[in-house]
């Protein structure tokens, strides 16, 4: 090895060592703010701790055995699945459609993109309050408008399907811009030469999108679906503000049910067990989608 290449190798080693050192604060931060609370939650889930009655010092699988026979948990998983599947599907479809539309816009109109980002900037509680008003017949301008023509808009928040629809609409409105941003970035990474080549070969715009653009977008679509899906498992503000889990208990998604057990029923240990289950579900989905993403990319 020449002295020059030795110098280069030494410099590369020093650089890598520097990078490794720079990672240390991040590792410490993750350990403090993620791993420690996670370990605490796991320990709580095996305990019998109750906010009012305290603990008898018992540790075991009691809470997890209770989970298996809990009908309210089953209902909460159903609610969470419906909200997540339909919500994320709507966000990805609308986000992609808007991104494709905005991608072709040029000149000063490109500033119009900012408009589509507004819902994403609004805090979730404010979003929920806006949509609660819109779905409350006595407050809603939509109902007032249709009333002028003698049309009665149904009350969405008093039936399970209607309430879930309302939550999905509010969630989609505030979260589709995230999907739009990721897809827009991915579209900008696709060479326009491919479109031009397809046009020269006589392919229509729709065919070009389906057979050329969409396959190239697949990794981005998968990634954004994964991000949104994991985030959607944490349904809370929309439910808390718009329905309080009602009618009855019909919109209590799993995360909300964990809140009810922890804060309303003071059953901290059982709430932690539900949270652990939710964490495992999210981890499993992430792992599976990451594998799928790897396969598609390769």
């Amino acid at each position, binding site marked *: 090895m020449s002295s020059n290449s030795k110098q280069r190798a030494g410099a590369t080693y020093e650089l890598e060592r520097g990078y490794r050192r720079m990672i240390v604060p991040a590792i410490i931060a993750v350990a403090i703010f993620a791993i420690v609370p996670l370990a605490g939650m796991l320990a709580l889930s095996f305990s019998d701790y109750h906010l009012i009655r305290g603990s008898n010092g018992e540790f075991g699988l009691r809470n997890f055995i209770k989970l298996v026979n809990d009908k309210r948990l089953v209902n909460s998983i159903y609610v969470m699945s419906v909200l997540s599947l339909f919500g994320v599907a709507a966000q990805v479809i609308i986000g992609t459609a808007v991104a494709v539309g905005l991608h072709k816009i040029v000149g000063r109109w490109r500033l119009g993109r900012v408009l589509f980002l507004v819902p994403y900037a609004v805090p979730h509680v404010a979003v929920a309050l806006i949509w609660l008003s819109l779905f409350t017949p006595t407050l809603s301008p939509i109902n007032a408008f249709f009333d002028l023509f003698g049309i009665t808009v149904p009350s969405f928040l008093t039936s399970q399907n209607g309430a879930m629809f309302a939550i999905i609409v509010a969630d989609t409105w505030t979260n589709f811009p995230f999907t739009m941003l990721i897809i827009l970035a991915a579209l900008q990474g696709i060479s326009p030469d491919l479109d031009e080549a397809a046009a020269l070969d006589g392919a229509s715009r729709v065919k070009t999108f389906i057979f050329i653009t969409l396959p190239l977008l697949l990794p981005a679509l998968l990634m954004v679906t994964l991000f949104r899906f994991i985030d959607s498992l944490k349904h809370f503000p929309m439910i808390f503000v718009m329905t309080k889990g009602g009618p*009855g208990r019909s919109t209590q998604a799993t995360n909300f049910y964990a809140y009810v057990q922890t804060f309303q029923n003071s059953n901290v240990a059982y709430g932690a067990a539900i949270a652990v289950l939710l964490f495992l579900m999210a981890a499993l989905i992430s792992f599976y989608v990451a594998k799928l993403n790897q396969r598609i990319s390769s």
Partner: protein
Amino acid sequence: MKRLLATAVAATLAFGVPALTTAADEEINVVMFGMPYTNGLQKLAGDFEAETGIKANIDVIGQDVFENRITLSFTGATGDIDVVHTPVIQVQRWVAANWLKPITAEVDAMAVKSDIMAGPLDAYVINGEQWAVPYMAATGLMTYRKDILEEAGVDVPDTWEDMLSVAAKIHNDETAAIAMRAVPGQGFNMFIFPMVMRAYGGKFFEDYTGGDLTPAINSPETLEALNVYMKLLNEYGPQGAGNFNFAEVNAAAQNGQIAFALEGTGVVAQIVDPAKSKFADKTGIALPPAGPAGRSPAIAVHGLGIPASAKNPELSARFIEWAVSTETMTKIALSESFSNFTTGPVAQNPEVIEKYSKVHPDFLTMQADALNLAIGHYRPLLPDWPALGQAIGENINAALNGLVSPEEALEGAEQDMKDILGM
């Protein structure tokens, strides 16, 4: 490496300096949820600082998030709250969890103690210790549209039976007959529904006052009450009434979309306030309707307590004494819709009397009548009440919105009560 250390030191200082500043200054943090008194108190924080030199950071948040905020603070014993809004319905739970500091000696030393109404003050005595000082005692009242009743040629309903027949006569597409809180929650539908339930002789436990806490909500009396509540809201309520909370009831009354509202006095004061409601001059006030077992207006006492983790309880006690003083209470009664004060001399202030007589001539008398009729354990004063109230409220709301039958709802509510109480 030097840069890294410098960054770490800067970060440490950035986090450390505010803590040092807080410790050096006389400053307290007060956390409350939004209502006329707390909003008024927040505006007077400067007066407290001018009088005592102590800076009070009064944080007024939504009722929904309040419980989560204080539960996280109390369980973590963070000491970041010096004075906390203490609803009487929560105080048993907080005392059982050792979240509050007993303040018997502090309250005994307050000059204002003899001016505070004895009933609300006693509501905060548990195991011989005082745990909070009341500032308001809200109750439940009914508002009605005088013009609509006159046009229909009917009297103000005195019983729930009367209400059913009047509602059938006046309900139409333009103006619904009645709205009440329906959304599930111990402070939401379970603040209102017991007014109907107790009027029909329904009860939560076999013998609450005698100490028999066997759940007894699944009774023919409660079923009858639930059927009345459901019929009124489903047949004579506005569209979407099954998801109404106090904000929606208030808005519907102020916009003239309903003829009757059954609400807490805090909301009633806004419905009849000409400054806030377009229909205030056409709105009357009455006691909640009676049933075969009599009349049972709601009651909710609110006060101020000191968390067990508070770092400087002496400053907290000084703040509470100032906050419930006749002078402060009078200022708030005059600036806000705040009439359910518990510091007696405020009611003798001529300006206060004049103000509330102008808002509505019957308001103060009706409120006093309702408070005289209310029973202290309208909602059971138990540590487990928040969980019980939530579970019962969910079942009642499920029946109201047709998810289960009324019979199934009461059966479910009783089973949930047994599960929560470990029976």
